[in-house]
Structures are given as C-alpha cells and as structure tokens.
C-alpha cells in the first residue's frame, strides 16, 4: 500500500473512532450528555486522535528509518573504496534508489515483466530504463544493479510490514480509546493535552529552524576561519576577493556600507511612515483613511527589483545631477544615498501601516482623559497616544530595519557593488548581502575561503540583527506603558 493510501485508511479509521467513541459515551451515559465528565464530542475527538495520531507518528518514524536501515545493509555489497567517501556514498545510493524506482515503475507500466526485471543485466539496464523514461547518468556497475535489486526486495518487504504495523496500531488505538470511554473518563483533558502539544510543537518549529540555520552556518564558518585568519576577517579594512587566492576579505567595508545604507533608509522611512500613520490614525476622517491606507500599502506589494530599477534610472541620476555634482561630492550614479532613499520608500508602508493599526488600538478613553484635562490634540498625541503605542511602533521600526539590512536587489542596482570605507554618502558602496550573493554566484565549490566567506558574512548578519532585536526588546521593556 502506498503512503497516500495508508493515510486515507487512517482518515477513515479516525472518522470511525469519532463516531464509535461518541456513540459509546452517549450509550453508557444513558443518552444524557450531562452525566458524562466531558461533552460528547470530546469522546469522539479522543477516539479519532487515538486511532490516527500514534499510527501516523509510527509511519513518520518508519519512513525515516527504513531507508537508513536498508542502506546500512546494502553498503556491505560494495567494495569498501566505493563507499568510503561521504559524498560518493550519497551519490551511489541515489543511483541505487533511482534504478530501483525505475524498475518498479517499468514493471508497473507493463514495459517489463517482474521476472525480466530481476534477471536484468548490468550493461542493458541503462538502455532499458531509458526506453521507459528513466534517465541514468552513467553506466551502471554490476554492484549497483545488484544493490538495486536487493533494495527492491527489502523495500517491498518493508512496505508490507509498514502497512500491517501502521494499520494494526491504528486499530489497537481505536479499540483502546473505546475501552477507555465511559462517563468517568476525562476525555476533554486528554484532547486538550494533545492540542496543547500541537501548539507547543508549532512554537518550537520556528525556534528549531533558527537553531538549525545557525548551526549549519556555523560549521561552514568554522571551516572558513580554518583557512582565513579570524582577525583579518573582522578587522580587515579591505575587501578584494580574488579567485586565484590571496584575497583580502575584510568585513568592515561591507559592514559600514550596510549600516550606512540602513541608517539613511531609516532616516527616510521612520519620519515619513510615522507621520503618515499619525495623520491616518488621528486626523484623517474615515473616508480619506479608507482610500489612503490601501494606496500606501500598495507600495508594499511592489517587488524590490522594480524599486531597484527606479533607483537605477530615476533616483540615482537625480541625486547625482542635482545634489552630488553641484556640491562637488561625487559623480557616481549609484550611491549610498540613492539606495538609502529607495529602501526608505520601500519601508514607508511597513512602518505607517503597522503603526497606524497600533495607534488606532490605543483606547479612546485615554485620548478623552488627556483632552478633558485641557491638553491640545498635539499634546495628547505626543504625550499620551504615542507613548502608549511605543512598544508596537518600535516593533514596526525594527521590522523595517531588518528589511533594510537584508535588502539586496535595491543595493545592487542603487548603490553598486564597490566595497569601500567612505564617509561620503554620494559614493558607491555595497552591503553584506550583496557580497554574499556575488561570492556564491558562478560555478564554485564550497572549499575556498572566497566562497566560504559567504557563511561568515551570513552569520555576522545574523548576529547584527539579533543584537538589534535584543536592543529593541530592551527599549520596549524600559519604556513600556501598559494600558488595559
């Protein structure tokens, strides 16, 4: 039975569990739901859960463990030198699985009989499988074909056992649930426990992913620092990678570019976004708001690459011709200011829309209290409403900052790709994200410092945003003004 079919059967069993457990509970209570510990539906849910959940968990574990077991049994069939290296071994088993799957599908489609498939010869496999639509990269070694045949056998047996065990577990769970069901049984607590576990799982997934990301980047970064001195990376003032070797991979110019562009973009986005939010939440009447708010939010939907074009053909030349050249500060079409302004515009709707929601959520009674004491509207907004909304606004600004730090496209097109340490905002500069991309594009392997540096850059970026978050949390804690 295929996994899909098993899941379907489990679904049916779960449904049966619901109906049977609910019926039994009602029957034992003599038809009076109030004599049960929990509401009847909870008994039903308990039946469903007991039928489906343990079986599904078992199935998931089986799916993970079965290939591992089979592979470890098959590796004995190859000469040791073929399976010594990790990546060679991975490729080999990928081939084994493909051949096995190809043979199965050939049999299923009738292109080969089962006997023919078992008797196939290593030289002919490639052509026969190509005829059925399974393309193999290289000629098949006899060992590989033997392993594939063995794999088929083991997988068939494993599949059979899987089906039997999973369904047996489901039926046993169902029976157990029905046996437990009775007026005294605390079904609600059980069901709520399961739901709680589900909620906890959901919250840990995000955390676990973060941990996973950090760990994977960390291991590559450690490899990088094995090849390149750590102090040269963190304190180096020059960024000039050369693929022949002898690169200078100093973080500081990139870090400077990132922070500079982020700063300028926030100088644009925070005041404009915040003022827009204050206007919308406190002064605009309902009809204006209904039109203006969605219009501002449209900006958020524009792909950043389109913003990049805008930076390239409009903002860049404007900044150069009207500010940089007349003041003699530079003559480059791409500059920190250009990218900063455009990223700022990109972030306006984030700040304005989120802040507007947060300001609107401040209770009217607080505004009344302030106005009732003879405060002006402006005093009310600045001294009561904004402080009350501050934690949320800081959150919004933080989100925008992270976006600015992580922005790549607009920087590439607006600020250029030249890594340099310069105070002049009308010069071309670049950021960490741009360099991560440019170090990884092209046909490269992860074994030279020039490519591995991308991971070190990535983890530095991660640490920066993490510090930013911690800082923001601290601000929020410090200035939090709670209202009910």
């Amino acid at each position, binding site marked *: 039975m295929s996994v899909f079919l098993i899941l379907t059967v489990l679904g049916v069993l779960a449904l049966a569990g619901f109906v049977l457990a609910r019926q039994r509970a009602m029957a034992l209570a003599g038809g009076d739901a109030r004599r049960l510990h929990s509401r009847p539906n909870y008994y039903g849910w308990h039946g469903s859960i007991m039928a489906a959940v343990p079986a599904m968990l078992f199935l998931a574990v089986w799916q993970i463990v079965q290939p591992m077991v089979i592979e470890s049994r098959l590796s004995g069939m190859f000469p040791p030198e073929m399976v010594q290296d990790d990546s060679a071994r991975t490729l080999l088993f990928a081939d084994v699985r493909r051949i096995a799957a190809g043979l199965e599908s050939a049999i299923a489609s009738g292109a080969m009989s089962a006997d023919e498939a078992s008797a196939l010869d290593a030289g002919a496999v490639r052509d026969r499988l190509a005829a059925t639509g399974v393309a193999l990269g290289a000629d098949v070694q006899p060992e590989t074909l033997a392993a594939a045949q063995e794999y088929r056998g083991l997988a068939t047996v494993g599949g059979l056992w899987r089906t039997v065990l999973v369904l047996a577990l489901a039926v046993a769970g169902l029976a157990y649930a029905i046996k437990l069901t009775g007026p005294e049984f605390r079904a609600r607590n059980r069901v709520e426990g399961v739901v709680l576990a589900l909620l906890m799982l959901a919250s840990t997934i995000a955390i676990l992913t973060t941990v996973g990301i950090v760990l994977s980047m960390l291991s590559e970064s450690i490899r990088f620092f094995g090849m390149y001195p750590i102090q040269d990376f963190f304190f180096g003032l020059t960024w000039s990678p050369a693929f022949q070797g002898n690169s200078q991979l100093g973080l500081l110019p990139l870090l400077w570019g990132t922070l500079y562009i982020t700063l300028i973009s926030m100088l644009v986005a925070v005041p404009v976004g915040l003022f827009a939010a204050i206007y919308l939440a406190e002064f605009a009447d*309902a009809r204006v708001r209904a039109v203006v708010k969605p219009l501002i939010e449209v900006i958020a939907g524009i792909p950043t690459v389109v913003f990049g074009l805008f930076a390239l053909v409009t903002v860049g030349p404007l900044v150069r011709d009207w500010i940089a050249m007349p003041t003699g500060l530079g003559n480059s079409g791409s500059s920190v200011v250009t990218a900063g302004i455009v990223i700022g515009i990109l972030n306006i709707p984030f700040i304005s829309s989120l802040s507007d929601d947060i300001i609107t959520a401040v*209770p*009217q*009674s*607080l*505004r*009344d*209290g*302030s*106005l*009732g*004491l*003879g*405060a*002006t509207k402006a*005093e009310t907004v600045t*001294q*009561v409403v904004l*402080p*009350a909304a501050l934690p949320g606004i800081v959150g919004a600004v933080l989100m925008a900052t992270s976006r600015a730090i992580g922005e790549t496209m607009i920087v590439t097109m607006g600020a250029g790709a030249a890594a340099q340490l310069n105070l002049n905002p009308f010069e071309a500069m670049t950021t960490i994200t741009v360099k991560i991309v440019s170090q990884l594009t092209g046909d490269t392997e992860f074994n030279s410092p020039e490519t591995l540096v991308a991971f070190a850059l990535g983890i530095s970026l991660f640490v920066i945003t993490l510090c930013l978050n911690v800082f923001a949390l601290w601000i929020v804690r410090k200035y939090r*003004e*709670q*209202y*009910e």
Partner: protein
Amino acid sequence: MNDMRLVERDVSNRQAKIEARGVQVHYGEKHALKDVDVAILDRTVTAFIGPSGCGKSTFLRCLNRMNDTVASAKVAGRITLDGQDIYDPRIDPVQLRAKVGMVFQKPNPFPKSIYENVAYGPKIHGLARSKAELDEIVETSLKKAALWNEVKDRLAAPGTGLSGGQQQRLCIARAVATAPEVLLMDEPCSALDPIATAQVEELIDELRSQFSVVIVTHSMQQAARVSQKTAFFHLGSLVEYGETGQIFTTPQDPRTEAYITGRIG
C-alpha cells in the same frame, strides 16, 4: 433619609456659572438629550441623578465640549460659561477644558507612572515653575483625592497597576491638580468603599468654597449629602431641578418622587 448630613442649602444668592438653554443632543438618529435648561451656580455642588441611560453623562460632556470627540454627536442649544457661549467659534475648546475639568465615568489613568498621571495637567498648563512646586501639587492633589497614603511609596509605579477604586481616585487627583474652575465628576465614587467615598465627599465640599462641582451619582444619599442643587433626568429630559432639600422632601413631579423613592429606575 435621616442619615443625611445637613449642608448649607441656601445658595439662592449665588451667580450662575454655567447656563444651558435648550440643549439638544443627537447621536446619529438617537435623540439623547431633549431641550435641557439648567443654570449651574458658582461655588455650588450640583448633583445629577436619574436612571441609567437617561443622558446624565451626555449632558456633562456638553459642558466641556467633550462631545466634540464623538463623531456622531450633534449638540444644539446654547451653553454659556461666565456669560460666554462655549460653542462660539472664537472659544478654544482646549482652554475651555482647562477651566472645566472632568472626571470620567470609567477610570482612564494614562499608562504612565502615578506621579506623571497627576503631573500631566500642571505640566501642560505650566502651573508649576519648579520641580519642587510640581511635587507639591502632586502631593496635595493625591491627598485631596484620599490616595496619598496608599501610593506615596510608589509614585513611580504605573497608574494602570492600581485597583479600580484607586484608579478612580487617581483620576480625581489628576483633575484636581489642573485647578479647574468647574469640576465635572461622572460617578466618581462608583467603585469606592465608604471610607474613601467619605473622603471624596469631603474633597467636594472643600472644593465648593472656590469652584462649582457637578456630580453624577446613582446614590440618593450621596446626592443629598454633598449637593445644594439637584437635577433629575429621565429619558433624555430634565424633569426637575431645584434645591436638593426640596427635591428630596417635596418633589414637584411625580416621576421625581417615584425615582427617589425607588419606584422607577
């Protein structure tokens, strides 16, 4: 009603501080206040009584133009403060509200420290020239509102962390600190125990020597104890307005009598 403390009832020689003539309020379609005429006297405590939903808060909010903040509210008629029409375009509602302070029916402390809550009005209106003076105002206001002893050690704690009754007194202190000429109090004792209630009533009595106080209350005893004039509202109309003693002993209107004896409400 033997427990009534007899306060000085003779206020007939006082001048009118606020005069309302033909005040109508509509909330959208709803006609919430119908043709109300009242003269609130200077240095007098006036009580508004009446069943829930009869328009007491609505009328109170007209007196300092707080209804301006309710988009659906339309106020018609004429209300004067010291002879000045307060709905005249030349009058700034901000200045008006500094003179006519308000304690709201629902306590609404700012999400700031207790100290900042009380200091808010004085700071805005520049009532204190130094930090010491401000401290002084905060302390006396909190003492007047009978809250000082409970909060003097935690002035920096958030005002929203106080109990419901404490929040109510904090809002009273906040309004008193702004030194208004008229104080509008919407059920200021609804969540207070008898001791705090007595202290607030004492405060009201004290304020009377300089200001006008208007108090909305559901307690007949309280109206009788603290006020010199009483207005009875019913279904959006002002049914009867007169000396408190007269309203409670010889009401003219059968609805007033029914209400104070507990037959409607």
